[in-house]
């Protein structure tokens, strides 16, 4: 059981939210205790946050390799099971194999990229989560994990920086 509390500070604009992140760091909260939630993609640099890690590029590469190997199997192995003479071409022809390899490599890469987003984001997830619908109306929220003793200081700092609301984050069914 964690004895940490979760606070949700909601800002109407980007600049005060970025200042709030800086202030929270000054109050002794590490980046791992903060999460920024927004209705549009805000880059880490804008908020002064560390770079977010994503496995999607590696998964895409893996998918491309898998697709290439499947294409190679279809293009180079399956013709030997039932050799067909097509217009005097070799049983395993060069240029047509490029088509099969290209399509399956691309398919593998794109499917694994799509699946990668699901895996990295843990989609689908229908369990209750800390969220307020105002976020999709353009608000920027900072989810803060803090000691109960820090709550008052954080709340007053966030309010001073222009937070519309600072409250205990309650997990709710989305």
């Amino acid at each position, binding site marked *: 059981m964690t004895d940490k509390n979760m606070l949700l500070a909601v800002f109407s604009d980007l600049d005060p939210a970025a200042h709030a992140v800086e202030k929270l760091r000054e109050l002794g909260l590490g980046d791992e205790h903060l999460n920024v939630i927004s209705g*549009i*993609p805000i880059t880490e640099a804008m908020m002064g946050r560390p770079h977010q890690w*994503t496995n999607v590029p590696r998964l895409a590469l893996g998918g491309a390799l898998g697709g290439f190997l499947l294409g190679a199997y279809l293009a180079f192995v399956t013709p030997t099971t039932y050799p067909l003479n097509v217009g005097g071409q070799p049983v395993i022809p060069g240029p047509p194999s490029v088509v099969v390899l290209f399509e399956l490599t691309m398919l593998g890469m794109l499917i694994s990229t799509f699946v990668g*987003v699901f895996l990295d984001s843990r989609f689908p997830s229908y369990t209750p989560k800390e969220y307020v*619908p105002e976020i*999709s109306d353009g608000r920027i929220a900072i989810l803060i994990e803090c000691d109960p003793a820090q709550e008052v200081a954080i709340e007053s700092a966030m309010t001073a920086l222009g937070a519309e609301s600072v409250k205990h984050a309650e997990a709710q069914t989305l």
Partner: protein
Amino acid sequence: MAVLANSATHAHTSEQDHEAHLREEHLMLDPRPRGEMNAMVMESMQTTSWKFWVAAGIMAILVAVCLFYYWGYMIANGLGVAGVNRPIYWGIFLVNTVFWIGISHAGTFVSALLRVFKAEFRRPFTRAAELMTTFGLVQAGLSIFMHMGRVWLSYWLAPYPNQRGLWPNFHSPLAWDFLAINTYLLSSTMYLFLPLIPDLAMARDRSTGWRKTLYRILALGFRGTEGEWTHLRFAMNLFAFAILPVMFSVHTIVSWDFAAAMRPGWSSTIFGPYFVIGALQSGLSAVAMVLIVVRATMKNMKYFIRPEHLDGLGKLMLIISMSWAYFFFNDYMVQWYNGDKWTDALLHFHEEGPLGWMWYAMLIFNVAVPWLTLWNKNWRRNPTLLFTVGLLVNIAMWFERYIIVPTSLSINRFPFTYQFYKPGVEIPLTIGTISFFILLYMLASRLIPLVPVWEVQEGQMAHSLRKFGKETVVTVSDLE
């Protein structure tokens, strides 16, 4: 002094007018609060008049009769009820396949290429275009299944291990078609879904009842955390770059169905790019037509889709029309010049045969009409005129495929087999696919936010007005 003061006041007023004009002109400079834009998009989805349901009902009846009944009739009676027969084994079904794949190209072109090049005017209509890709490919797929005749054996096309050790023949462009079309259909559907997730979450947050349940399931639990956006942003960028070569490959491979055959009129090395340009020609025109209909019939869409967007699409249509004319002439010139008597006979048959009017209509609608109208800014921004040009271009592109497929098959190197193509059940089935496309689009427009609100807001954040000397100009910041 008074003169100077008057002059300064006049300059100030004129500057304000200029700024007001820029804001009215460009969606990106006319921001509204995100909540208001969300409400506008939700209202556009949820507001349906009786006219909508009458139109949807007519489309549903056309789909039931022209698509399902006649297809069932053809399955029960065999391909003989269609007009395909010696020497024309490829008829309207394949005309429609090529046509619908062409329509599907524009969605990806508009969305991916303009995203890669950061063309800002794309933002409000990328989704409307992407939907066309998916629904266009559905019609292309249906047309291929119709052409097969024995649809219940269509799984033979799929490469899977089986008892007989038989695999599809990967020497054949038809097998490449199977791979390319499926790759494109899957990729474009995934590419449609990824940027839709944040908008589905938006819709989830402001819906009730069955819509809430639907959007909750489809939004997958998206909240907009930094991690979620990072994964999504990377995936969308990768898709935008990777789906373009897939798009080009699909129509090139479709062209090889023809070009790989040693037939007069078909065997051509330019067919790949010529088909790709043809696809963009019809697809972009279809995007313009759809946007004009959406803008005219859906609530609040006049805010999101403005004359500047029609103007941008009109310019693209003009450029693509010129490119199409270039590729057409290149193909025609080389065939005309080579002096082969069968090719010469075919070219004469195209121009002077019973369907010569179709050949001339193709050139007039594809070249003369866009060139004579779309050079003019005011005409490009006129919805009625742009819709008419788009419709004529699409008719012309359907004619082009008709000339390439059944008309070119009518005559060959065996004069005793010459035959004129008389379509049968293909005509209602064609009406059926068009109706099905319209019906799917109509239903989707009431279920899916057609405008990617988060992309519009992101664009509005990046745009501003800046003064260079005395001139106020639009500037865009690169937020990525």
